[in-house]
């Protein structure tokens, strides 16, 4: 298998064949990321396409100091964020004070990490989340961005980022509970 370094060099020289090789190697992983950030597979494919065009145009500026895969993932995430800005609708951001109030009324309910919910269901739940929730949740949980970084990238306040994350978790918990109950019921019955 051709090394990434050779592929990068060939792509830098404009080789479409090398870029095809790059696409073949990384498109599945990157489409997985795009899927997490999008409403549906069509939007994910649009992000993937746009992201790969950016990668092709910027590959000459990649300096082999960090992870190439990491560099491509960041481009995909930034492309997804651009989509988010384009599609931004009027969204009601719940203030953090409201959240604290709600939080105090909530009982801590643990969710088993091994909960019997398959990947497809979880993906569907994530994709159906409100866009603001989805982006903050993805960036915070999967990409490890801080609230300050999320706020900067999404153009919202830090408090809004925190609020969105809280709401996202609430949303997910609510959506997952039925599957857990069903699983428990199945275990009892069977």
């Amino acid at each position, binding site marked *: 298998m*051709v090394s990434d370094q*050779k592929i990068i*060099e*060939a792509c*830098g*020289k*404009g*080789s*479409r*064949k*090398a*870029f*095809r090789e790059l*696409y073949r190697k990384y*498109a*599945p*992983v990157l*489409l*997985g990321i795009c*899927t*997490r950030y999008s409403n549906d*597979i069509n939007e*994910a*494919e649009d992000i*993937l*396409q746009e992201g*790969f*065009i950016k990668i*092709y*145009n*910027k*590959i*000459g*500026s990649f300096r082999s100091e960090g992870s190439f895969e990491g560099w491509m993932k960041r481009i995909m995430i930034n492309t997804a964020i651009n989509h988010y800005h384009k599609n931004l609708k009027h969204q009601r951001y719940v203030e953090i004070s409201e959240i604290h109030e709600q939080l105090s009324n909530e009982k*801590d*309910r*643990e*969710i*088993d*990490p091994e*909960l019997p*919910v398959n*990947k497809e269901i*979880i*993906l569907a739940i*994530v994709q159906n989340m409100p866009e603001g929730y989805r982006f903050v*949740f993805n960036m915070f*949980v*999967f990409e490890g961005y801080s609230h300050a970084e999320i706020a900067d990238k999404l153009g919202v306040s830090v408090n809004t980022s925190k609020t969105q994350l809280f709401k996202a*978790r609430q949303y*997910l*918990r609510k959506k*997952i509970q039925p599957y857990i109950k069903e699983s428990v019921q199945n275990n009892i019955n069977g």
Partner: protein
Amino acid sequence: MNRDSKHMDEVFRNRFQSFEAQPPEYIWDRIKANIPGNNSGTLFSNPVSLASIAAIILIALMLGINTIKQENIQPANSIQKNQNIATSQDNTAYQNTNPVTIPAQSINTTDISLQNENPAGPQTGFGKSFPSLVSEEKPSARENIRVFTMGNLSSRKILAENDKPNIHADNQNLKPTYNSLSGNIQNYRARPELVMGVHFSPEVMFYPEDNINNQNSYRFDLSAALHFSDFFVETGLGLNFSKDQGGYSYDYQKYLGTYDDVYEVTFDSTENGVIPTYHTSPEDVYDSVSESYHPTKNKYTYLEIPLLIGFKKDYKRISWFVKGGPSFAFLVHKNIPEVNITDQDILLALNENKQPQRVSSNVQFVLGAGINYRIHKRVSLSFEPVFRYYLTSAYERSYIRSKHTYSAGVRAGLLFNF
């Protein structure tokens, strides 16, 4: 963060840790339609492949030359015969209507078809490997029998391998010719002439589609050319030193100082009334964003291997020539300085290298024409304007529109004939 949230995050992280989705084929078609570029790259981007191709071409060339040279020299140990080869003093005749070349190895003194009358004398004959040469007929006609002698055949010794003879038998008459090692060879063609050279060539690069200052480079090279009458093939090794004008564009904010930011005011009641207390913290102040440019010199060294063919004509001491062919260049060293802002009061906002950088290998088409002036029997001066057209981009395409840059220069040097 409470435990539930941590668990929630962990659940999702686990589920998506190695999440992949296979994109449909039409995505690539859409991407391909939106990117420029070429379909090649793997061959020319691999210096090993290129070097291998160059080596194969060179070896093939050398073998070809060697074959041509050997064809000009008739095999010293062969005998050609059309018909009526006869030999020996007992007048035994042998007939053969087909031209046969007999290797000297098949001539021996033990495997005898032709008997010598004189048992004391040297014996010779044609081996069993050529039975058609051996006729069982008795010698029928004296006129068909010819006895030939070579050298000191008074001893009737047919020259064997060690003597390196060439014996020719023409259609009707045996007309042996003896081409000794020191003798002249009929139809001898001119041997290829090897010409070595050392050259120096300054060049200027041109960018047809970009507004970039022309960049200078210079090259030292050793050449080796084989001349076959008016034509020649040339290769060699060269080192090209390029010094591109580069630079970084960066935005910066100049530090102006600090101010005390009041983040809280408290009021204390005293005998003199209410006194406010201002709680402050120092805040840095920067000027508005300015743009600056930091020039650099980007240095590259390429190893170059040309494979050229040419045509040359001589007029006494002066000869003119034209030549052309590909040249393969491989980056062996580069030095691109990083921007180094030592001013502590500067806040860098953006740091971007504005200069296109060169790629690790490229292929050029070289076209040259010039004159040589012979200053000594074996030494000539050479002067040659050279044009190079870059078949593959010399620069990273993301920074530059011109895929096919070109350069013009002058190549001067000394040639040594061998």
